[in-house]
Structure formats: C-alpha cells, structure tokens
C-alpha cells in the first residue's frame, strides 16, 4: 500500500520555509501547520527538523527573528524574510520550477 505521505526531498525544506514566510512573518509552529495545510497533508515534515532549518536560515541571514505575541496571546518567536532571503527565494523557486518542468517533461515523453 502506497504511503499517504511523501518524505521531503533533500534541501527542499528550506525552499518551503522561504515560500511560507514570503507571505507573512510566522512562528515555527505556524510554518509547520501552513506547510501541511497547503500541501493538503501530502508532505510530511518531521516537526523537529523544522527548527534546525529555521536557525540555519537565520544564521545565513535569509530570515530574521523577533519575539512577538501569538494569536492566543502567548510569547512566540516570529520569523520573516530578509531582503537577501527574498532574493534567495526567487532564485531557488526559479531553479526548482525549471528542474521540475524538465523532470516531468522527461517523464511524460520518454
């Protein structure tokens, strides 16, 4: 029986995070919820692996963090894209689209 979930290909988590944050600043839990929602629960993100990715992106200066208040009035750490992050996102998105287009073209024609 095929699994309902697809494991994330290597390196795509960063792209998904950048995409999610490109709409609005979010805290970590919301990022994970958003990814699952948008992907109609097809993609499975081990929630724990989200945080190292966030911290890595922060270190690379692609996103920045600030403490704010969540919807339910709790202290939460919000992440937002930096200028560099937006640029990086566009480059990565472009690359990804080219890659998938190429791969599906091969799959369809070959």
């Amino acid at each position, binding site marked *: 029986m095929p699994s309902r979930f697809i494991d994330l290909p290597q390196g795509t988590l960063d792209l998904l995070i950048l995409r999610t944050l490109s709409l609005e600043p979010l*805290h*970590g*839990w919301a990022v*994970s919820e958003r990814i699952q929602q948008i992907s109609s629960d097809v993609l499975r993100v*081990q*929630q*724990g*692996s989200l*945080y*190292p*990715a966030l*911290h*890595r992106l*922060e*270190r*690379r*200066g692609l996103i920045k963090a600030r*403490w704010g208040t*969540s919807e*339910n009035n*709790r*202290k*939460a*750490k919000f992440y937002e894209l930096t200028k*560099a992050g937006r640029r990086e996102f566009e480059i990565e998105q472009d690359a990804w689209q080219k890659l998938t287009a190429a791969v599906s073209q091969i799959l369809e024609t070959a």
Partner: protein
Amino acid sequence: MFLHDLLFRLRALMRHPAVENELDDELRFHLEQQTDKYLKSGMSEAEVKRRVRLEFGGLDKVKDDCREARGVSLVESLVQDLHYSARTLLHSPAFTACAVLTLALGIGANTAIFSVVNTVLLNPLPYSNPQELLAARQNEALPNLKDMQQRTNSFASSGGVNITLMDFTGKGEPVRVHAALVDGGLFTTLGVQPMLGRWISANEDVKGGPPNVVASYAFWRDFLGADPDVLGRTIRLSDNSFTVIGVMPKNFALPRELADVFVSLWTGYPEAAPERGVHFMHTYWRLKPGVGLTQAQADIAQADRRLAEEFPDTERERGTLLIPLRELLVGDVRPALLVLFGAVGLVLLIACANFAMLLMARAVTRQRELMIRVSLGARNSRLIRQRLTESTLIALVGGAVGLLAAKAGTTLLLALKPAELHHMDAIPMDVRVFMFVFAISLLTGLLFGLLPAWSAARGDIAEALRENARTTTTGVSRSPLRSFLVTAELALALILLAGAGLLIKGFLRLRSVDPGFNSSNVISMYLQLPGTRYPNIPMQTNFRRELLARINAFPGVEAAMITDLPLAGNFVGHRVVIDGVPTTAVGTEPMAQVLSVMGEYFGVMQIPIHAGRAFSAMDREGQPRVAIVNETFVRQLLPGQNPIGSRINWARADDPNDWMTIIGVVSDVKHSGLNQPVDPAIYQPFSQNDEAWRKWMTLVIRTRVPVAGVIEDVKKQVWSLDSQIPLSDIQSMDDLLAVSLAQERFNMLLLGSFAVLAVVLAGVGIYGMVAYRVNQRTHEIGVHMALGAQHRDVLRLVMKDAVKLGLLGITLGLVGAIALTRVMVSLLFKVKPTDPVTLIGVALLLAAVAMLAGYIPARRALSVHPMTALRSE
C-alpha cells in the same frame, strides 16, 4: 554575509544562556500549540502526549541540531568534550599515564633536538642584515685584504681578525687573554656598536697608530670592575700599555673567534701587519645591497688574479672562496643535526603508532559505553570528535611533559659537549620551540587520534566486539590498522637501528685509529714568552732549557716541549726545498708542518723512531742544523731514497746553503685529527729555531704516578723563572684525544639512544599486539588445550601474526635503511652506509627483541588453564 555569520555565532557564544533559554521557549511554544490543537480535537491526553512527541522527534536531538545550525556548538561542544575527556581520562590513570608518557618521550626528544636545530641553524646571526655577510674560506694577509677591498665594487665593507694570546698583567696572577688583532673595518662590516665609548677609527688603524684597546663585555666586567668610567684607563697587555677606548655590548661575539680584547693589528702585532705572505686573518665581507654572491665571487676572483700577478712570491696560489657567513658557521654541523632531527622524527612516529594502538585498545574496552551513546542518538561525527578531543588532550599534556623532558634533555646534550655546541652555555627555548611543541602535539593528537577513530568507524571495533562476544568460530580476525602500525614501527625502528649501528661502527673504527703516540699519563700545558722580555732566540732557548731541567728534576716525571701539540688544532706550515730535487715554481713548493721540540719529545710521547736517531743534547745552537721527519714526509717527498742524510731547507730561505740534515724518521702522528690524513712533518730542535716569533710552546709531561700534584709544581717552577707568564690549556692527552672524538661520540650517543628508544617502543607495540591477541583468545586457547594442543601449537596460534608482521617490518626496514642511510655518508668514518654486517646485525637484533616482546605475553597463553578459560565464558 560572512560578517553576519560571525556576529551571529558570536552572539550565540557570548549570550549563551539567553540563547539557550530562547531555544527552550521556542520549542516549548511549539509543543504546547500542537498539544492544544490535538486536545481541541478531542483526543485523550495520553494519546496527545504520544502523538506530539512522535511528530516532533527527540527533543534533545532537535536542540542539538539547532545549536549546530546556529554554530554555537563548535565551541560549546568542545568545552563539553574537553570536560568529558578530562573526566574519563582521570578515571583510567594507567591508560592515561601510558599514553602521556609515550608521547612525552617522542615529543620531548624531538623538542630537545629542535631546540638545538633552532639555536644553531635557524636563529639569525646577531649582526645587522646578516644575510649580506660573507666570509672567506681562506685566511688572508692585511695588505691583501686592503687591496681587495679597494679593487672590488661588490662590498660595502670588509674586515679581518686574528686571535692571539696576550698576557694581561693587572692585579694578582697574570692572566692569558684572547686578543683579537683586528682591522678597523671589521666592526663596520659586522654592524655592531660599542656599548661604551667608540670603536678603533680608520685613522688610528695605521702603522704607528695609538695603542688603543676595546674590551669585551666579559673582560670589562671581570677584570675592569665593570667600571662605567673605564674609558681612558690604561691596561697592560703582554708588557705594552693600551688605552681603553670602548666596551662592546654583552651579547656581542665575533662570528668564529673568542676574544676578550680588541686591538688594531698595527698596534698589537706591528711586525705582521705589513707582511703580505702572512695569511692569518679571518676575513668578513658585507655585500652592497643588491649584489649577489656570484657577482661578488667573480669580483674577488679578478682581484685575486691581479694580486697573483703582482706578488707571485707569496700570492701565486690564490683562490679566495666566499661563502655566506651562516654557511661557514653551521655548514659542517648541518648534516649531523639534520640526520639527528630526521631520526628523532622517526622516533616520534613510532611513539605515535603506539599511541594509536593504545587508543584502539581503549576503544574496544569502551565499546559498551560507545554503543550506549550511539543508541541514545549520539551522531557518529560527534563521537569521532569526542575521541579526537580526547586524543588531542592527551597529546597536549604529553607535549607539556615532553617540554619538561626536553629541558632536561638539552642540559644533557650540553654536557656531552659536542664541538658545535662548545661555545654555548645554554640552549634557549624560545617562542619557536614552544610553537613547535604545540604544533607537533596538536598534529599528533589529531592525526593519530583520527586513525583509530576512522578505523573504528570502518568496523574494526565491530570486529573486536564480535571477538568479545565470541560469535566467531574461525577466530581469524585481524585489525588491519593494528597490523599496519606494528609493521611500520618495526620498519622505522630498523632504520634507526641501522643508522645507529653504522655510527657505532664508524666510531669504533675511528677510536681504534692509532694517533701515533701514547696518550696515557701525559699532561700538557701551553705557555708563551712575552716578546718584550724574550725578544731573541737565545733568551727564549735559555728559558726553555732551564724550565725543562727543573721539571725533569721532579722524581717520576719526564718532560719535553713542542710548539704545537697533536690534536690541538694548530701548526705552522712552511714550504720546503730538498737538496738535489729541482725546485718547482715559486709558491708551489711542497708544504710541510714545522714543529720545534726540546727534550726527549719522542720518548715522552712514545712516538716510535723508524730510522736514524732522536735529537740529542748535542743538536743545539752553533751545531749543524738537523731535522727529523715523519713517514709521510719520506713517502711523499723522498720516495725511494734513503731519507737519513738528505738535506732540506725552507723555500726561499735567507741562507739557501744552510741546509738541515735529516737524522731520523719517526712514525706518523695524527696531528689534525684521527679522521684526517697525515701531512708531511718536520721536527727541528727549538735551540736551532731561526724564527724568533715562534715564542710559544706546549709542555708535555709523562708521569709514572697519577698527575694530581704535578701541575701545581710545574706552575711554581714557571713562575719562579718568570712570574708574569700564565699557563693555559692544561689538559691530559687522554682528554685531548676524547675531545677530538666528541663530535662523533655526540652523533653516536644521540642516534644510539634514539634507536634504543625506538626499539623499546616497537617492542612495546609488539607486546601490546600479542597481549591483546592472547586476551581475546583465552577461550579459544582453553579449548585447544582441552583438546590436547601442545605448548608449541598454542605459541604458534598467538604469535603467528607477530612473527609475520615482524618479518615484514624488518624487511621493509632494511629496504628503508638502504635508501635512507645514504644521507649519513658524511658522518661515517670508513664505513659504507650499506655495510652488510651492520645491516644484518641490526636486523637480527631487532628480530630477537621483537620475538622476546611477543614471547612474554604469549607465554601467558601457555599458563591458561583449560577449565578457567572455559569458565570465563
């Protein structure tokens, strides 16, 4: 981007607790949100807890990954690892002590030798812009030096110096001091300023110039009372008055020469200053900026040619060779030091191999702990880093202990008094030495920690574990790394052993060289007559004759004298002509050492007389001139003739018809060193001396009883004849002989001890391997013995590998030795670097040691009782 990264990491580091708290808060927030979400959907609390944890993954691992992602972890986990390592190492003191000691030996020996290399080869010379300084191989006469400086364009300046002994008569006993007879350019060339006063100026450095003296710091401190107002004071040197005009700084020394005072050649030895033929000054040259050695050498060569044309009498055979000053100073010792440095490097490699094996053995015993940590989620990279931290920590501690050992080692090296360290009273350990220790410790720890860690990752440990669990029945499990290390150790040890063996053989050959005289029970001392009070030969002869008579009057004492002792490093050379042999071109006549003697010199030194007779009391002034020559003289200059009765004279003698008749031939004496060829030599009686400037002499005194009191008695006799004459260089001929072997002994002892160290370490390596094997196979051995195996079979079982690896290592070592001992060729005396006897000998020796080292633990296997072994299951 980089700056951001750095600031980010820094913040992580500086604000460590805050960052940790933030991380906790962030993750807690996530878990709480998720919990809330599921609780709202109506799940049971237990189910919620389970799902949240499952979806999130291991909290500690996530935190660890976050830290890693932030880049904190590098420093932080290092601190953690260090703490952990220190704790575990303290828990196993035996292992720690072994490892630290092994490395301390290796690093200590390396550091000691590096300190010497650093001091002798690497430290800059204490002169300004030392790279511009050159020295001439040949000695030079002052007029030539002046001409050459004038006729060349390559040199900013040049200067010369000759060391002579002068008697300083101040208060108390007369003292013999080393006086540097200099030319005014010397100090400009070396680029050194006096500490007090000034240097001898160019207009004073001329014929009839004022008798000024510059004192060395030590002379000023010891004999001038460190008087700051010393300038202008008058001191007496060899019966002449000199005015002190300067004091040199404390750290100043001439490149090769020992000097207490500096005077102009024109005032210190005015007779020699204008003599073109008196080549007796060491010369130093400073290149003009931008001029290279080749250009300078060509420049000097044209000056040489002009001098040779103008003064064929004395300058025909010129060929001044300029070499960088450093090359001149260390050129001779460099090969020995580099060989020793290489050898000690091999010792370190062997120590490192043992270190790696210790780490491997430890990894096996700690297998359970490692497995637990892996199952708890520790990542492989983290474990390797942990082990590297541990090995590096050990190596650094080993390095620190090694540094202490090196300190002691350098003291020992100095005590051996090798020639090149003779003038050093300390081998300083400077920043470079500390850097060296730190670097090799770090490298050792990382590299040799990585080897076993890497091998563990590749399954050696799993292998060992299987052995532990005894799931293997065939029992043939080998650790390839361990085998490699043991083989390499043996190969390296053999190379060292071969080097040491060759040096020992060369040394024994050298020591067995007959010096040509019997050194036992002979003491020697040097004295020089002041020219002012003994200006002519008759006065000198009277003094000598009277002194010898008085000393020979002591009971049980036989005394004689000679100008220059064998092995003392000096002689006067003369060109000679032989009656009946057509003379060659001026300046190309054969050269011979000329040694004046008085008393029964050949009897006292027990130099055999081969033909003719020794000098008698009748061979004295006013009588026909006589000479005794050595065998080499006969062989080279009178081949096929009867030497007795042949007549010789100095080339271009004042009276060409005043021949000396050869009355005897004596056996060759190794005048210039046991490993040096013998030159033709002429002995003549002091009383028939025709050169008043040869006013020095060396007493040789043979005693039937040990010498204790004799020296004082001789001093008294000298001073009762003349209270102003100091005696110096008082030493036994045995000591002189030993000093002449000091360099070779130094090389041999050092390389020998490295070889011993290497063999011991390699032995320990084999021991460890076999012991490990025996431990691992106690059970199997028990089974074998229960089944009736003989001792021989058991030995074969546990030693088979050791023997195989031993043979392989020794074979590889032989190949390596043949390839490498070539670099030692300049250190060996009459031994080929591939001397088969030595190579085979050391191979057998090492094989024996290896067998023994393997046999000791193997024997333990024999004492295994089958029942105990089986029960140990």
